[in-house]
């Protein structure tokens, strides 16, 4: 199968090249204007529009992540435009799909930079994809904000890469603490996705912190993203009689893992991270995840007025309750817009500096202050799964 991938990529590239001419004019949200030729490199083709770029997993294994993020971003942009735009200009966003694949993400980022000449790139949710994007954005000097990639190495790519969510060590830390202090678990098994930087990152920190707090990791099993039969690993885990299983994977795999665990008679709670957050999780898992816990960026049950206001607006626009990724997409776009407003001009360095100054920014998924490593410092919510939804349990601070 692998060796067909290059062929396929070539075909897609040809196809994309063919479509280029058609998709070029009129970014969304902009009326028919006489297109002015781009005067100098870096300026958008249309001088009355500030163009943002987003690369997201609109299709593929993590499709709900990209779609939720896009919805959040669109909502933020619409509100900014309704309020008069930024620097007297309208804002628009150009969105490319990366099919949940890093190589597509890198390609799309290059397109946003070289052809669309966007001023800020909003990254993907999956860390593996954002890593591929960060490489390109950093070397081109275009600021990039990732709404939800929690792997530490993403922002380590350089001073143009920011994130408005917490990082993996924190999620692993929070869950280890929760398992020891709230669940009083002494023996926990881990089932990690060894194809995802995200899952490996969470595992490492969880393992370290849990052992440090006096717990014992009974076994560390692994699967590869996209597997659908986890019975062998679960059987091996069952033998070690853990009190809980830490599964820091994505919802598409976790739902199936939960069902198969229950089927094999493993009834202990599962624990996970924000990769679980999707309505699809409950569809895939049925009630197999009842009584399981995961750490997340936000809870729609948070009673804060600005959170509830966002939820109402999102519901009006898209007809569903926003998940954490929608909230983070919304926050990321608002941080980006605020930075553009503050920046002295639209050049990469100016906007970069403006983003770096973000302090105490009130987002729906927590208050955002960027530290010197360009990571947001904020608290995590622990959610408990039950009755086909996630209920707010507690907040754990850094």
């Amino acid at each position, binding site marked *: 199968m692998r060796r067909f991938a290059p062929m396929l990529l070539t075909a897609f590239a040809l196809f994309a090249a063919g479509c280029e001419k058609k998709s070029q004019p009129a970014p969304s949200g902009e009326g028919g204007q006489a297109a002015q030729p781009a005067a100098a490199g870096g300026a958008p083709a249309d001088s009355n529009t500030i163009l943002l770029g987003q690369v997201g997993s609109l*299709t593929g*294994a993590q499709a709900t992540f990209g779609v939720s993020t896009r919805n959040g971003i669109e909502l933020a942009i619409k509100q900014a435009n309704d309020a008069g735009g930024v620097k007297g200009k309208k804002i628009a966003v150009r969105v490319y799909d990366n099919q949940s694949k890093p190589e597509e993400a890198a390609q799309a980022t290059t397109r946003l930079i070289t052809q669309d000449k966007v001023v800020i790139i909003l990254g993907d949710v999956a860390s593996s994809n954002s890593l591929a994007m960060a490489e390109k954005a950093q070397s081109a000097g275009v600021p990039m904000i990732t709404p939800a990639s929690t792997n530490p190495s993403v922002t380590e790519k350089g001073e143009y890469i920011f994130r408005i969510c917490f990082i993996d060590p924190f999620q692993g830390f929070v869950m280890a603490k929760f398992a020891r202090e709230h669940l009083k678990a002494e023996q926990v098994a881990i089932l990690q996705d060894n194809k995802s930087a995200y899952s490996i990152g969470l595992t490492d920190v969880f393992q370290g912190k849990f052992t440090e707090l006096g717990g014992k990791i009974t076994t560390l099993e692994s699967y590869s993203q996209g597997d*659908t039969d986890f019975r062998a690993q679960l059987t091996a885990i*069952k033998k070690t009689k853990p009190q809980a299983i830490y599964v820091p994977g994505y919802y*598409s795999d976790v739902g199936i893992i939960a069902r198969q665990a229950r089927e*094999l008679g493993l009834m202990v709670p599962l624990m996970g991270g924000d990769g679980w957050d999707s309505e699809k999780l409950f*569809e895939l898992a049925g009630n197999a995840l009842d009584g399981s816990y995961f750490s997340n960026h936000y809870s729609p049950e948070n009673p804060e007025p600005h959170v509830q206001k966002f939820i109402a607006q999102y519901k009006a626009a898209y007809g569903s309750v926003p998940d954490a990724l929608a909230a983070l997409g919304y926050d990321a776009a608002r941080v980006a817009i605020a930075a553009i407003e503050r920046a002295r001009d639209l050049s990469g360095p100016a906007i970069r500096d403006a983003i770096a100054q973000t302090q105490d920014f009130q987002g729906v998924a927590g208050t955002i202050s960027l530290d010197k490593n360009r990571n947001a410092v904020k608290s995590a919510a622990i959610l408990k799964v039950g009755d086909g939804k996630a209920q707010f349990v507690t907040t754990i601070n850094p």
Partner: protein
Amino acid sequence: MAQLLQHLINGIAAGTIYALVALGYTMVYGVLKLINFAHGDVMMVGVYMGYSTAFLLGRQTQSTPWGVLVIFLVAMAGCALMGFLIERFAYRPLRDKPRLTALITAIGISFALSYGFQLDIGFLPGSAPRAFPQIIKPAQWFTVGDPEFPDVVLWNWQVISLMLAVGLMVGLQYLVYRTRFGRAMRAVSFDHRVAALMGIPTDRVISLTFMIGSALAAGAGLLYAIKDTSVSPLMGLYVGLKAFVAAVIGGIGNVPGAMVGGLLLGLVEEFVVGYAASTWRDAVAFGFLILVLLVRPGGLFGRVAAEKV
């Protein structure tokens, strides 16, 4: 010991599916000497047909035995029709062209189906994996140890799958070696031009072979979806490749060989994942393939036929 037994059960359950999908490869290859790479994707389409039928029947969580039968029949009939169309319009026009041409078309159809089904327009399902409804209500048929926390579990669907697979294999073996149609199939396989001269309706035999193979794929796909509780447009690529390996291990073109190859592959994978790591799964599975081919180039049950030049 209990763990070994559980791995054995899981491995046989996984291998059964490979075996069933491999039967389709083997039949088509046996008659046409064509590796139908679209086979796995026909399976995937069959699963979606079963998925839609289950929802149309309104039994989203579990079905009556009749409901299950209807789901299987609709999916198998739908796939048989699709197999017919694919053969008629994609392979038949190329039958007298070099064999590589048809192989490339097969790959093309495979990708057209698996990526086409990721589109989200009209009846197409979109790319996200879906939960497959529990059309066979899971029940434990056999447990060892504490019933609350059993060491070994044997599920009803695992037994049903295995019996169905063995039944289909026996039926196929009968069809190929004991019926007029089977004799025609073997004649076409031997030399389709001469078979045509002898008054055998070659096109019809080949069409029927494709239809049977595709219907088998749909059946196998449904069992797979019941086992792994999910369905996604790319599932066919993965299962198809594994089943192809199983068919080659057993000796492609050989019906019991496909069965044994599938079960062996399922067991090898299960033990590798259970006792080593999932990263090793594909490496060991394909290493096993190479080993078999080195020792017995025709596969475990195959004969190396000297080709007349």
